[in-house]
């Protein structure tokens, strides 16, 4: 949740919340707690946790299972605000962290059974980035030599992530990864070409799995599979029973089938108490494999069920509005349909996208400056967030003195110019690259060199950086040269002009850069992270250089160093590649857009930000945020209706509910989209305590007409309401 007030427990609990707190603490009884969002289920769980600690239960014997780490932070904050002598030490974990931790601990007992070639050696756990790297090494030769995936128009990073997604889905849903092809094929009703691609996808993931087993690499899917095997063993059962006596699960509906299998197993083991909270309008993480249908069955697996009916957050009118939109979509409203007009604070529909954005900025400014609303209580929600939208809104709000916080799934590291500039320095500072550059095997555009100079040298603007780069990186030499030395191609007069234009203070610093690079080239290659750390420490963070007294810019630098260090760690241990090659591989990994950067340093700061939030609907819902005012923008966009184009995988077909061999037809597609949109609307409304602003434009940002299904459903809902009146 946003806002401080939501992070500590309320003084007075509802009747249902009180029941949850008082649920028997011994005897292994389980309770299934359900309700719409905003009915106080999470608060009930947190109050229960607080009560357990207050009366002296051992914190480390309590397991709190949460679908994602943003919620872990919330639980931590509640623990921080407790008035008890013990205020932490509880195991608040996501399913994956728990699985990975268990597999690492029991590795010596399970490695050989699972088919790892070296069970006597420690495993290397892969991050998403490093898994993509290994997948890339497998896929690239197949693309080049055998024309794999030639019929698909898809960017490399998306190809890799879908291949990995297939493996992960198999593990999380609980079927053999070798069935991916048959499952996708059985549901496909289109061209034959796609079947080839499915087969190729299967071939790639099979090779990837074999490689992992041969090299003791444990990717996400293998961790999950290993854990599935592990928890069925008697020794693990014994361990679990000794370790945990109480279980709390929040947002049960956002869990994947295998996590739900595990929770079902855990219910049998726990001898203290178990409480599971289920959101009736959840299951938004369907693309990550969440199985709300299965989660609903837990009402039967638990000893008792309790429904929270009263809204704790005053989201009655927005919920009624969501109910009306759901009805207009042909879905069950799920919530009582009372008058909803007051939910809609204002509407805008103009011709142009830019005017729409201006309107949003104006209204936000009114809320903040005239009505005294805190920016953190306002969210702008779009189907997806483009660069143009981000820039236009941020700029518009900044002119009104309001900051904006962007919540967006991680972006490739290379999108950051500082990262690109630093990688250019890595290229220029490594002999292996130098050779490739000089032979013309790798072309480094002069613009990249200009950017690198601009980032490295303080007070160098883009124009002067370009001027310097053109002279310092002559096309015929393909490396940086000493402009005052013998290899310079400039006459003394030209040189004078150059330094006059670029600045004499830059001359000395440029020379220092060159000397440092020369020095670095003499050293044995130590990896990108260490190269960059040394560069930063001995030069770039000192006076006259680009990171001197620049803590904010250093964050991006830190992110790149962290990513490179993880890469080196994961790849070094299990690969025959030498350090030089690893450096080149890493640089390519980032420049090809594979490495993405959601890093530890980034995420917790969000809670402290007093800014308007801009977020894609999906990210907003899965992070379980709430706001007083929501601006639903771009309502005419198809983005609200379409699901991401994933030609090599399928969230519904690769689920437990889809029988192998049954075709996925338009009618199923239509139904699933309607349901997904219906859930999004309900989820958003339940997280809005004040009012909704409905905002659209006839023409989209690219000038095309917009008349999406969401917009139409809203119009229909409004019309139905006025007819009824």
């Amino acid at each position, binding site marked *: 949740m946003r806002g401080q007030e939501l992070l500590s427990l309320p003084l007075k609990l509802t009747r249902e919340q009180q029941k949850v707190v008082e649920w028997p603490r011994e005897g292994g009884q389980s309770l299934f707690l359900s309700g719409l969002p905003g009915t106080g289920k999470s608060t009930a769980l947190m109050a229960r946790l607080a009560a357990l600690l207050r009366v002296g239960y*051992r914190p480390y014997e309590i397991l709190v299972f949460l679908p994602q780490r943003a919620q872990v932070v919330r639980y931590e904050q509640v623990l921080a605000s407790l008035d008890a002598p013990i205020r932490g030490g509880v195991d608040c974990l996501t399913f994956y962290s728990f699985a990975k931790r268990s597999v690492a601990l029991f590795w*010596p007992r399970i490695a050989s059974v699972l088919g790892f070639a070296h069970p006597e*050696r420690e495993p290397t756990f892969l991050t998403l980035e490093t898994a993509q790297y290994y997948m890339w090494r497998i896929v690239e030769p197949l693309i080049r030599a055998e024309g794999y995936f030639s019929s698909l128009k898809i960017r490399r990073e998306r190809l890799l992530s879908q291949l990995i997604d297939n493996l992960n889905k198999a593990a999380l849903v609980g079927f053999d990864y070798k069935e991916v092809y048959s499952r996708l094929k059985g549901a496909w009703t289109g061209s034959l070409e796609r079947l080839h691609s499915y087969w190729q996808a299967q071939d790639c993931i099979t090779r990837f799995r074999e490689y992992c087993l041969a090299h003791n690499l444990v990717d996400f899917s293998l961790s999950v599979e290993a854990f599935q095997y592990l928890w069925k063993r008697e020794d693990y059962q014994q361990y679990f029973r000794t370790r945990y006596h109480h279980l709390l699960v929040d947002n049960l509906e956002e869990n994947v089938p295998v996590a739900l299998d595990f929770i079902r197993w855990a219910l049998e083991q726990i001898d203290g108490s178990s409480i599971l909270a289920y959101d009736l309008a959840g299951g938004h993480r369907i693309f990550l494999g969440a199985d709300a249908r299965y989660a609903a069955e837990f009402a039967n697996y638990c000893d008792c069920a309790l429904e929270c009916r009263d809204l704790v957050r005053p989201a009655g009118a927005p919920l009624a509005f969501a109910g009306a939109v759901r009805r207009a979509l042909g879905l069950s409203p799920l919530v009582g349909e009372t008058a909803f007009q007051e939910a809609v604070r204002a509407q805008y529909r103009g011709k142009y996208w830019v005017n729409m954005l201006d309107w949003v900025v104006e209204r936000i400014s009114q809320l903040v400056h005239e009505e005294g609303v805190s920016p953190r209580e306002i969210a702008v929600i779009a189907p997806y967030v483009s660069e143009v939208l981000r820039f236009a809104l941020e700029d518009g709000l900044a002119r009104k003195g309001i900051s904006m916080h962007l919540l967006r799934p991680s972006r490739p590291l290379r999108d950051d110019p500082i990262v690109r500039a630093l990688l250019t320095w890595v290229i220029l500072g490594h002999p292996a690259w130098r050779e490739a550059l000089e032979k013309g095997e790798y072309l480094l555009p002069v613009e990249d060199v200009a950017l690198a100079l601009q980032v490295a040298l303080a007070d160098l603007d883009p124009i002067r950086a370009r001027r310097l780069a053109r002279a310092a990186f002559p096309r015929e030499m393909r490396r940086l040269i000493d402009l005052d030395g013998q290899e310079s191609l400039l006459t003394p007069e030209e040189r004078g002009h150059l330094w006059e234009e670029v600045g004499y203070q830059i001359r000395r610093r440029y020379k220092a850069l060159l000397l440092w690079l020369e020095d670095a080239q003499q050293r044995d290659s130590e990896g990108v992270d260490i190269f960059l750390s040394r560069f930063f420490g001995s030069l770039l963070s000192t006076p006259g250089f680009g990171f001197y007294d620049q803590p904010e810019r250093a964050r991006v630098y830190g992110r790149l160093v962290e990513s490179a260090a993880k890469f080196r760690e994961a790849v070094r241990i299990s690969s025959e590649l030498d350090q030089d090659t690893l450096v080149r591989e890493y640089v390519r990994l980032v420049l090809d857009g594979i490495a993405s950067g959601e890093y530890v340093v980034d995420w917790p700061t969000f809670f402290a930000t007093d800014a308007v939030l801009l977020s894609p609907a999906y990210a907003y819902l899965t992070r379980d945020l709430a706001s007083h005012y929501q601006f639903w923008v771009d309502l005419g966009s198809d983005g609200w209706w379409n699901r991401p184009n994933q030609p090599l995988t399928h969230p519904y077909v690769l689920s437990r509910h889809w029988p192998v061999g049954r075709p996925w037809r338009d009618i199923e597609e239509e139904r699933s989209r309607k349901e997904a949109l219906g859930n999004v609307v309900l989820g958003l409304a339940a997280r809005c305590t004040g009012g909704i602003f409905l905002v659209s434009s006839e023409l989209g940002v690219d000038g095309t007409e917009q008349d999406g299904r969401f917009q139409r459903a809203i119009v229909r809902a409004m019309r139905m309401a006025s007819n009824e009146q």
Partner: protein
Amino acid sequence: MLIEPGYLFSQHSLNTYVRCQRRFLLRYIEHQPWPMPEDEDPLDYQRHLARGRMFHQWLVRRHWGIEMSEIVEACEDSLLRQWWRAVETLFPWDALPDGIREAELPVVVSLGEYRLYARYDYLALDPQNKVAVIVDWKTLASVPSYQVLRERIQTRVYLYTLIAASHVLTGGKSLAPDQVKMLYWFANYPDDVIEIPYSEAAFQQDAHYLQSLVREIGRRPREAFAPTEDSRLCAHCQYRTLCHREVITSAEEDWLDEEIDFALDLQDIPELEY
């Protein structure tokens, strides 16, 4: 207020504060990355950390009865093998109190309006006779003196938290301070075990010291977190260019020990959330 109520202090953060307030601010409050190497040989430093983490992980496995011999035999790191053999054969396992044994145990207690966190490498507690020992596995290159360890913030934090949380750990009764001790075991010097006893007076002193320390930190405005006056400490500090510190001589002691708290490792958090 820079530090919110409920803030989680640890032995590492307090130790940092005592040595350099500015480093505490940058590292623990602002989480300021400043990616310069703290050590001349960063690869060696990383190996040192990795080896320490692995050693701790092996000991956790041992605690849960997981057979380690194949892994140890196949391990190419001879120092790690040597540490393992030493802890297996020379550590006085049987002399420890029995009843409750826990490895990598996190304990978080209230400290005024803030919180204090400790993670014991190993806890041995006998709830019947109400005695307990906290064991800390040290992989340092040398053995500090008894006096240094006695005064160390880690010792004070660990023993204090043990008493403060003891009623929860034993499941009812609190432990008396003179019934607990801290045992430092040195993987490179397995015979040089150092035991630090505790007492009611020491507990009261620690309670007073720790509470006033966190109160002082909590009240401090941002600009009052001063750089250390002992510039030798800057020699191994990653922020030295941010602080504009020219380093002349380096201190004997460095900051490396700060990092070995592997269990709080945020890198565990996956980027991909399912």
